[in-house]
């Protein structure tokens, strides 16, 4: 066995004379250098060998000879050649034993020689930076790798001193072992280049039992490759310094998992708040936090980690899941008002935090998002993440919240910092803005009616559980922070308004609303008016509608204070039934087509007497508090009724339903209302402004409603069966924009004409006789034609 070839010149002997087409890609000069040629000639009897394998052994040896002067060269080469001869025997026996073997090589690896070469040799006196420190002890040098060599000759040999199954090149396997193999896994790696005629490094001779697989079937393929370097990786240098590593990383690294700084708190560098910044707070324990505004995240449940951005009015609705009302009533902190405003103050200006941080560096580092989560001693059993952000110091502080603040701060001061004295100054700083609770606190009963709470101060701070009734009173339903600010000067005052309610034991979830409202200092709340557009309506803004009121000679529009009550559409209650309660109505928003309805349930027996009620109920449900004027623009003034369009009506139902009806049938009932709003874009094409040009309330024609006599409902025993009739209502917007009239100027008539006498001799005929010139022209034409035909 053994065709030894050098690393740069790969010789592939071949017998297929059919392959006369050789493509020698000569990118480099052929380095014709041969290693032990004597061995080559000696062992030339062998049928085939992968020259990869020979590649491996020789250069290793060569390199060993060249580089490792300290290594005993003779020993290495001797063992190497020894293994080579062994290989020959192995191979020959394998050839005889296993004719079916189709793999390319059955060569044993060079375990012995490889290991010897790779063992770190004592480094010679090449100077490195470390060599100065360790002069006496030779620093271990990495075993050198031969260039342009396939070093993984037997990658399937994973077990040292043990035979790997199906690994034919494993020297630990005996020939008998190999007979038990089903196939050989050696050399299952890919070829480096598809254009090679054969797998690289294979020597094929005539009487080989190995199969030769054509790797590609094009017209041309590569037999010799003179530029071998391109098939091998370059050998990288070892990285010894961090800078080197970073250079490598910068050059080669692809995006991977990275860790952003764990401190997600933005560094307080600003002199004043800007829109979108978090609003900083400081607790009575002098811990800096941010004003929180619970919001739904991946579910509808309240996520307490959310912060309220400065100057952006936010409105979140989220759910608190309560496992046990009796326990959660007193222990779930999110239900109590105190956690939303007590024991914390708003930092009016981030610059103040910087100042305090400069004077005492400890608290600034302890910045925590504590205010968002009320410090809780108990985690709700539902597994809310409420307590995640609470710090140990705060939970220990919790029982003392009812006591004075100085007590609370002193308890935490013990373990936290020796600079407790200076830290108390931040909370007690006069310029810190305390959050005032608005009075009277509003309560809402179970029917949805709001009233001023009749409760003691203590009841307002935390919910009270009534064990006999099984109710939990004074639970926070709504929290509204109203923050007054003065631009760059920061926050001047802060208020919080609560809406408290009552939950019963069967209610397992509680809907809470959190909102922030920002006001400029000096702004008068009663004068503020939120437009629906300026001037044209904007999509998803409520349609401005009111009623015309005439006083003496002047008339004006009466507009509801609540913009969501201007123009409304009925909605159903949770069971789908009609409610005439105005709270249940949905505001009509500009540009949004809507369809809604509810059910009126009637029973077969009371149908006739219920007729009137049905009718009245339907009318009130449909129209609600019907406006009669609609603003054309979002900026239309109430004092100028000319800017408002009159609401038109068709099929207006009579107030009272007509005559008595027959049994099981109601006649003349109106069950539908379709509101149609026509608008048109006006102004520039690039900046269209929507203007409402007309509104129609189109009622359905009065119809008879009757029980549909499908079998079950007509059975005598089921006369009390209910049947539901749909009262429906819809809103549609009609874009009546007049497309721009494109008036193009007429195509100009180009008045180009020759002078009147330009063809004078040809055009003037006297007395119907052609003149001489005309004759001349005719003759000329005839002659030229005749000539042409002759030529052809």
């Amino acid at each position, binding site marked *: 066995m053994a065709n030894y070839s050098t690393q740069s010149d790969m010789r592939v002997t071949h017998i297929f004379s059919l392959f006369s087409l050789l493509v020698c890609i000569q990118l480099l000069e052929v380095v014709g250098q041969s290693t032990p040629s004597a061995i080559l000639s000696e062992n030339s009897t062998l049928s085939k060998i992968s020259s990869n394998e020979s590649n491996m052994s020789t250069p290793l040896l060569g390199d060993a000879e060249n580089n490792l002067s300290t290594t005993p060269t003779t020993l290495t080469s001797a063992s190497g050649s020894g293994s080579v001869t062994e290989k020959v025997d192995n191979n020959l026996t394998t050839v005889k034993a296993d004719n079916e073997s189709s793999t390319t090589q059955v060569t044993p690896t060079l375990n012995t020689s490889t290991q010897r070469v790779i063992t770190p040799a004592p480094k010679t006196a090449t100077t490195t930076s470390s060599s100065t420190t360790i002069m006496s002890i030779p620093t271990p040098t990495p075993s050198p790798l031969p260039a342009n060599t396939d070093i993984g000759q037997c990658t399937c040999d994973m077990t040292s001193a043990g035979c790997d199954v199906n690994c034919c090149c494993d020297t630990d396997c005996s020939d008998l072992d190999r007979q038990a193999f089903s196939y050989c896994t050696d050399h299952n790696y890919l070829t480096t280049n598809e254009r090679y005629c054969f797998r690289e490094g294979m020597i094929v001779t005539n009487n080989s039992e190995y199969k030769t697989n054509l790797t590609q079937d094009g017209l041309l393929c590569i037999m010799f490759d003179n530029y071998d370097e391109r098939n091998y990786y370059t050998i990288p240098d070892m990285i010894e310094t961090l800078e080197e590593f970073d250079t490598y990383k910068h050059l080669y690294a692809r995006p991977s998992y990275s860790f952003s700084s764990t401190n997600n708190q933005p560094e307080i560098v600003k002199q004043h708040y800007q829109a979108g910044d978090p609003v900083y707070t400081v607790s009575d324990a002098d811990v800096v936090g941010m004003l929180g505004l619970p919001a739904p995240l991946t*579910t509808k449940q309240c996520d307490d980690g959310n912060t309220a951005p400065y100057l952006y009015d936010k409105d979140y609705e989220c*759910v608190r899941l309560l496992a046990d009302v009796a326990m959660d009533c007193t222990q779930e902190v999110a239900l109590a008002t105190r956690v939303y405003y007590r024991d914390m103050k708003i930092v009016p200006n981030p610059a103040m935090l910087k100042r305090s941080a400069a004077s005492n560096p400890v608290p600034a580092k302890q910045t925590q998002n504590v205010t968002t989560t009320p410090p809780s001693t108990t985690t709700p059993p539902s597994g809310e993440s409420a307590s995640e952000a609470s710090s140990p110091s705060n939970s220990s502080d919790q029982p003392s919240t009812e006591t004075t603040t100085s007590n609370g701060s002193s308890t935490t001061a013990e373990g936290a910092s020796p600079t407790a004295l200076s830290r108390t100054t931040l909370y007690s700083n006069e310029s810190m803005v305390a959050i005032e609770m608005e009075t009277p606190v509003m309560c809402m009963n179970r029917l949805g009616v709001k009233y001023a709470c009749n409760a003691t101060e203590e009841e307002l701070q935390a919910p009270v559980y009534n064990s006999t009734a099984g109710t939990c009173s004074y639970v926070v339903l709504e929290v509204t922070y109203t923050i007054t600010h003065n631009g760059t000067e920061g926050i001047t005052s802060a208020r919080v308004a609560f809406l408290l309610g009552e939950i019963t034991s069967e209610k397992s979830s509680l809907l809470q609303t959190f909102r922030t409202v920002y006001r400029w200092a000096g702004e008068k709340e009663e004068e503020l008016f939120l437009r629906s557009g300026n001037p044209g309506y904007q999509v998803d803004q409520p349609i401005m509608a009111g009623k015309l009121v005439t006083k003496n000679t002047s008339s004006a529009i009466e507009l509801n204070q609540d913009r969501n009550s201007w123009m409304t559409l009925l909605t159903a209650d949770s069971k*789908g039934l009609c409610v005439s309660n105005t709270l249940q109505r949905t505001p009509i928003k500009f540009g949004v087509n809507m*369809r809604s309805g509810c*059910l009126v349930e009637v029973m077969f027996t009371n149908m006739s007497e219920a007729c009137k009620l049905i009718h009245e109920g339907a009318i009130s449900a449909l129209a609600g508090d019907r406006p009669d004027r609609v603003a054309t623009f979002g900026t239309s003034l109430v004092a100028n009724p000319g800017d408002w369009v009159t609401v038109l009506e068709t099929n207006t139902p009579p107030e009272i339903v007509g005559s008595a009806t027959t049994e099981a049938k109601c006649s003349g009932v109106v069950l539908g209302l379709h509101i149609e709003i026509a608008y048109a874009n006006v102004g520039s094409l690039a900046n269209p402004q929507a203007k409402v040009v007309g509104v129609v309330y189109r009622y359905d024609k009065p119809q008879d409603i009757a029980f549909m006599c499908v079998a079950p409902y007509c059975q005598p025993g089921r006369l009390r069966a209910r049947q539901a009739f749909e009262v429906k209502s819809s809103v549609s917007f009609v874009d009546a924009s007049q497309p721009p009239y494109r008036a193009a100027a007429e195509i100009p008539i180009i008045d180009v004409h020759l002078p009147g006498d330009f063809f004078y001799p040809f055009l003037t005929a006297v007395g119907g006789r052609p003149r001489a010139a005309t004759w001349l022209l005719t003759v000329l034409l005839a002659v030229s034609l005749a000539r042409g035909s002759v030529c052809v």
Partner: protein
Amino acid sequence: MAVIQVYSHAIQQKYKASVCSKATFFQLCVFILTVVPPLIFAYKSQGFWLKLSSYVEQPDIRFKYQLLVILDTADDYLAWSTFQNFNSLQQSHIRIPLVKSREEDVNRDGKKDLLHFSLEMPVTDTEDIFALQLLLFFDYRLYKFSEFTMESMAYVHHSAMQSGAEYSTDGHLILVQRQPLAHRGVDSRYNNTSIDQESIFAEAYDFKRIFKEYNSRNVTTRYDADYSVWVRGRGSGMPFTITITVRYPEESVTYTPGFWQVMKDAWIQYLAVLIIFVLVFDRIKKYVFKNQLVTTIVDRRVKPHDT
């Protein structure tokens, strides 16, 4: 004195032979060899006749304001549709939602680009929603080649392990074509409703039947609701909300080209090959006749080459 060429013209040489002669036969053969092989070559190298082509057009899609929704609670269901007869059939399961929709023309080119759709179904606190099925109906039109009109459908469905508060999805209404359209004419084969609104029979609203009928069409639309979100944790008193954004993307429509487009395309291919054959055989003919390889009468008169 220098001489320059001031003018040149070709000289036409005529070779004459009788009809039944070798020369005539040779000329005929050469003519056939010039004309026919390019045709065979152009045909055999594939793509000679243009049978399929495509164009890009943004369809004119309008939401028809027709829908059908079914929500599954733990052991019951709620249903509603804009089809009155379906609602009558449902009776006790009917629950009327608040439906909002808005079609937006983002680039103001006169064609709607997306639909914002939301549906709020009032549900009691004990009714937990686990699954939903929703059918939306659209009017789909193409103008560029054939005037194609159809009623298409978007089917949104989701089912979850946990009861939800909200389902939200954002996707495209994609044209599914199993047959090329014609290159001209009016095509309203599929402009029929998938649901027979007039029917008072339950089977008219059977989803299996509706889908079977719809899928048997060669042109349909599909709504890809790949990016959907199921939000849990409905609070008491809150409705179940479905929010859907349907985008109307520009579509690549395949069509069968018309006669003249096919001819034009084939002619270009044929001509390109023919030119080479003409040039080659011209040389051959010149050689054959000049050297009298076939006998011809050479007209000795030399005349200027007139055309």
